[in-house]
């Protein structure tokens, strides 16, 4: 068995406090962005179908911080945090949610199809597991051309039951392409809990890597440092030619599947307990021992950034309906 199981950070590696503070700022920016998106959707500003990643900010930030500029990601329906962390300015994401030409997909994509090729975001995907095979192919292209780049797929526990996931894992390991598969395991497939969609305990889902002889690295998805170290180790391994890596990050969705989800399927007391126990921003704030004053200053800063993104989006240009067919063919 060539597969190695690792616990991120077990080698004693740590990231600097400065980096942690930068991570904290970005996670808070994602949180405030998501809260604003919920608010503007409820106010009737935003069309479409939206999913926020409140509770999963450490995954987006830690993974993307561990990547280099030329690396690429493919995201999921819960995409806003990934897009922010990969480097798309929040105003271009907000403009996309408002359906404006200034949006990162020029108003053609929406919340579930945020793209930004310039920063290496190959796109969010509204089909669960739908973006994974293209990550294998991107990594194959890098391998064939001898480029020092990795391709990263984000997906959740629900996606690991899709054939697309299994075929992609199998092919990626067979060809040892430089891919990193980030399993963002929040224990929910939309409204269906892991106990109803996984035949193994939710915390052991990473074992699926073993079936492909693929290296598995585990990390606590609420601990941004662990996420960063796990991804960094995975990137090194993938680029060494030893094959791709499954990075299993246990995380918590501290909100509904979509904005407006009444979560009738979820125990209210348990959700409250999770919010108090697993909020990655609270956890990092405590660890950094931020004073109330420091936190308030930082919060004001990112909140202003989010407010400015709304103003930018509202002032954006509506697409010409006649341009709807502009990009059907290259």
């Amino acid at each position, binding site marked *: 068995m060539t597969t190695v199981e690792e616990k991120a950070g077990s080698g004693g590696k740590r990231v600097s406090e400065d980096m942690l503070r930068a991570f904290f700022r970005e996670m808070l920016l994602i949180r405030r962005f998501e809260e604003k998106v919920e608010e503007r959707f409820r106010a009737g500003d935003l069309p479409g179908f939206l999913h926020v990643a409140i509770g999963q900010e450490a995954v987006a930030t830690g993974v993307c911080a561990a990547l280099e500029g030329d690396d*690429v990601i493919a995201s999921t329906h819960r995409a806003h945090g990934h897009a922010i962390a990969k480097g798309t300015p929040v105003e271009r994401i907000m403009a996309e949610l408002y359906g404006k030409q200034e*949006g*990162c*997909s*020029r*108003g*053609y*994509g929406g919340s579930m*199809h945020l*793209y*930004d*090729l310039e920063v290496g975001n*190959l*796109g969010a*995907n509204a*089909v669960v597991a*739908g*973006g*994974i*095979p*293209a*990550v*294998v*192919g*991107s*990594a*194959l*292209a*890098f391998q*064939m051309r001898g480029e020092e780049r990795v*391709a990263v797929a984000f997906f959740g526990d629900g996606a690991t039951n899709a*054939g*697309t996931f299994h*075929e*992609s894992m*199998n*092919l990626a390991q*067979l060809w040892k392409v430089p891919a990193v598969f980030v399993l963002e395991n929040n224990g929910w497939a939309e409204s269906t809990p892991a106990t109803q969609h996984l035949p193994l305990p939710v915390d052991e889902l990473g074992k699926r890597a073993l079936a492909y002889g693929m290296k598995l690295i585990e990390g606590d998805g609420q601990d941004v440092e662990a996420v960063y170290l796990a991804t960094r180790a995975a990137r090194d391994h993938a680029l060494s030619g030893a094959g791709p890596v499954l990075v299993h990050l246990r995380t918590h969705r501290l909100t509904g599947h979509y904005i407006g989800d009444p979560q009738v399927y979820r125990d209210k007391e348990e959700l409250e307990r999770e919010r108090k126990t697993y909020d990655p921003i609270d956890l990092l704030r405590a660890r950094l021992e931020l004073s109330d004053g420091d936190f308030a200053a930082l919060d004001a800063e990112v909140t202003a950034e989010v407010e400015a993104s709304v103003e930018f989006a509202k002032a954006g240009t509506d697409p010409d309906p006649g341009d709807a067919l*502009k*990009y*059907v*063919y*290259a």
Partner: protein
Amino acid sequence: MPETTYREAVRDALRQALRQDESVFLMGEDIAEMGGSMAVTQGLLDEFGPKRVRNTPISEMAIVGSGIGAAIQGMRPVVEIMYEDFLTLSMEQLVNQAAKHRTMSGGQIKVPLTIRTQGGAGWSPGAQHAQQLEAWFVHVPGLKVVFASTPEDVRGLLWSAIYDDNPVVFFEHRTLYPIKGEVPDELEPIPLGEARIHREGEDVTVVATGRLVHEALAAAEQAESEGISVEVVDPRTLLPLDEETIIESVKKTTRCVTAHEAVTRGGFGAELAAVIQHAAFDWLDAPIERVGAKFAPLPFAPVMEQHVVPHAEDVLEAIKRTTARAG
């Protein structure tokens, strides 16, 4: 290469593209040592090696999906789906991903991917190895669809498909692989979206695709001997469609038969009929006749298989039905 087979013509386009361009590579089931289940890729592994002629697991979603990813990164992958029946397994990647990335990204992404596949009846494989599913893909904005019927066309069209910046589903017909035809010495790309008039005629236009082009030409010969002059047009590219050539032909002949091996109901002939009646309503002297397979999964026994799929006689009967109407 004055005369060559359809099979060798496909291989020649692949070989020349692989020679010319490092970004071109092949992926598919059994395409390397075995040379493909239709022997199309024979010899290519020896010339180009296993990195560019890649055997894959039996994983159609991953074959097409990884082709999409490589294409997004600037490669020009040519993937082979062994039988078009198996395209059904890759539909999600083709329809939701390959076809839509460009629009969903607001024009940031290109997917220069070619998906070669083949199908067709005439050898009694039963219901899951001989379907003709090209019409499904014509319904999907963002895809291009090609169905070539001669050695010259298949070579020139495949070249254009490989160098098109969009995903192209490229249909070959199993029974056409051994047929021979003249091809130019030098590979001449045939632009996508241009129909070919195989035979000029005055009384009726037959718009045929794939194997039925040859059945239509045989029917036209017979009709000629009975005093009916038949024009045979092969669209070659179903999406985008060369509507102009087809409509001009029908305006000239005033009658039209569509012919394909796929089942008639919901087939490409339905789209052709709709386009033609709308553009040439005042010219038509008879209802457009559609020739296609009967509405059944293909049965195994040869006599039943032959009963279900259309032949030259079916085209000839349709020609006679349409010319029997008063002008």
